[in-house]
């Protein structure tokens, strides 16, 4: 078990390194840097000025060196100009060069400075993740029980009318991406054309104070797309368990149907869906970005869009690191929990 954990964590770290390097490469492409220079300096800079600005600010070092600096492994660059003033990656404005640390990167907790929000990135990320965390929590609270109930009820009696209806419902929800269901929900429940003005079409106010009115639509929109998938997994797993010998034995010894389902079937049927739920969390990320944009809820997804739209390289990098981290950790947890929950799997 320990060697499995070590190997798995090692692969995860290697993956994280490769992925962050890819993101670093793709965000630091030449045109992005030129755009950055012009927005930092001024729009009418000549090509020569752009090049010299990039040179002076350490963007012309080899890519691996810059990746190392950003990560906090390599020493930050420093430069002494004609007047003898020292500038460098780790030297903040107003701080003498001697006091500045050697390395400043992700590992030192220095996430950089956002050009759009004019704030330190770690603060932004913390705040936005908190907001998205609330959204995700509500979504999981709605999605998981709903999906499990639908799946178990459908899989309990395979081929019955209830099963057919619920399965078709599951297919319908997996065919409705968030940008479709969100738009339809807003039209039906939040505009004067639907007639029902139960909820609000925007969740901008939910950032300070969450109410039923302003938070229902984003939560439902996000939950709906995931429900179908988990429900189908649960159904398949439940249907398989219900055909097992021990279920027949339990039935034949005279146990009632509900007793069989609750005591014997459920525990075995929920192993597979549990790992699926964990793997759904990274999937929700795309949905979070769509829903936060659609409902104007300024969380993590919205920040990602803002970073991309404004060519805010450092912020985009930070968002990517968080996203990649979330994906990899949920994968790891899903693997480990599968091994723990399923006694039939032995890790050698």
């Amino acid at each position: 078990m320990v060697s499995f954990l070590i190997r798995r964590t090692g692969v995860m770290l290697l993956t994280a390194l490769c992925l962050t390097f890819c993101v670093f490469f793709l965000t630091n492409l030449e045109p992005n840097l030129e755009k950055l220079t012009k927005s930092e300096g001024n729009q009418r800079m000549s090509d020569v000025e752009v090049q010299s600005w990039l040179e002076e600010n350490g963007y012309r070092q080899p890519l691996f060196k810059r990746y190392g600096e950003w990560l906090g492994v390599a020493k930050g660059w420093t430069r002494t100009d004609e007047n003898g003033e020292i500038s460098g990656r780790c030297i903040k404005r107003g701080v003498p060069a001697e006091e500045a640390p050697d390395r400043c990167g992700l590992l030192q907790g220095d996430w950089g400075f956002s050009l759009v929000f004019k704030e330190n990135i770690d603060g932004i990320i913390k705040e936005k993740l908190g907001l998205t965390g609330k959204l995700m929590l509500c979504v999981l609270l709605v999605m998981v029980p709903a999906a499990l109930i639908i799946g178990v009820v459908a899989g309990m009696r395979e081929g019955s009318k209830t099963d057919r209806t619920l399965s078709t419902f599951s297919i319908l929800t997996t065919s409705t991406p968030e940008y479709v269901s969100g738009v339809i929900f807003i039209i039906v429940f939040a505009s004067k054309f639907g007639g029902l003005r139960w909820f609000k079409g925007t969740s901008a106010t939910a950032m300070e104070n969450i109410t039923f009115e302003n938070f229902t639509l984003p939560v439902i929109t996000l939950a709906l797309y995931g429900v179908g998938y988990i429900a189908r997994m649960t159904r398949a797993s439940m249907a398989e368990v219900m055909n097992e010998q021990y279920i027949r034995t339990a039935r034949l010894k005279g146990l009632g149907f509900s007793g069989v389902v609750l005591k014997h079937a459920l525990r075995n049927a929920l192993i597979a869906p549990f790992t699926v739920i964990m793997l759904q969390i990274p999937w929700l990320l795309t949905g979070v970005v769509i829903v936060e944009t659609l409902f104007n809820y300024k969380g993590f997804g919205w920040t990602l869009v803002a970073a991309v739209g404004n060519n805010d390289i450092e912020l985009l990098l930070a968002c990517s690191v968080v996203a990649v981290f979330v994906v990899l950790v949920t994968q790891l947890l899903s693997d480990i929990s599968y091994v723990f929950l399923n006694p039939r799997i032995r890790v050698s």
Partner: protein
Amino acid sequence: MERLTASEIIVGVLTQFTPVWIGLAVILLVSWLFRSKLGLYGKLFGSPIGVAGLILVLFWVLTAIFADLIATMDPLTQLSGMKNKKPGWPVTGEEGQWYLLGGDNLARDVFSRMVHGSRIVIAIAPAATIFAFMVGVTLGLPSGYYGGKFDTVLSFIANLVLAFPVILLFFLLVTPEIRETGVPLVMAGVLFLFPIIFFLMLFYSRFKEQPPKLIFSVAATLVLGFWAYSGLAFNKDPFGVFYMDPNLLNIFVAVVFVNSPTVFRIVRGLTIDIKTRDYVAAAQTRGETPWYIMLWEVLPNARGPLIVDFCLRIGYTTILLGTLGFFGLGLTPESPDWGTTINEGRKLLAVYPHPALPPTIALMTLVLGLNLLADGLREESLKD
């Protein structure tokens, strides 16, 4: 002129779709009559869910084919006085012309845009899925069959791409800046090679002992393959037949790139399972080459799950294309594809909901059709 009533709008829309109804009736009737001879496709008629899916998919395929006949207006023309007009509004100055589903924010016909949008989706989504399958199959078969280091490296790369959040990958890979650097061209250059490799291996392993057939098929693959390759990937087709808009190429490559690792994993898993069967052992004893076994023994026996996944994947690709349009990535803003139209429409959702609704329903019904079709196919293929 009077504005059309709700029932007149419905009748008008249904009448416009006449070519589709005729086409649907003919295809379904012919398929139903010959269902016993059509294999898996014929068996589909035993499952109501499958038939429902087939009808929805055929509806949109036929709509894409007959788009010019169905659409009442040009999808890009803006008519004065028609901005944000409600469904059924008469066109000013034109007798007997209506905007059946109203006008959008730029005074274009919502109905015609939806109909023409189907062309883009129906053209890109299956093509991108086929390319993803070619990549996934060409790499997944040897990976599962040989195992070892080759498999470890490829699986690691596949997991790497899969661990990338899809939306992030799109934001990074589909931008005007990246088009300047030529990264999409490099990716296209690599990804578009796989179909050629696939067909070369397919024919080579089969006709190795029959030189005339071998020379003919390999030569045909090379000529056709590299002709299309030069046009699609680098836009250097000497005859100008194969051409892909740089924006479109960017989207296409991104979507293929996102989909192929999953296909790779499925094919690899199936191969590992199938290579232990007796008929593979028999082929090995006969002295068949590994590539013959992979392409002519393993692959045909893996077709059931692959066909089902193919249907599901086209639906997923449609959703991905919509997501790209929703964020305004890739295609130009005036493109009538559904994702872009939804993105345009959502900005005024609270005031004018009618431009956003038709493309959402179109996208949903197409994906639903594909998912139902996949479900029906799965059920029918499990029966035997």
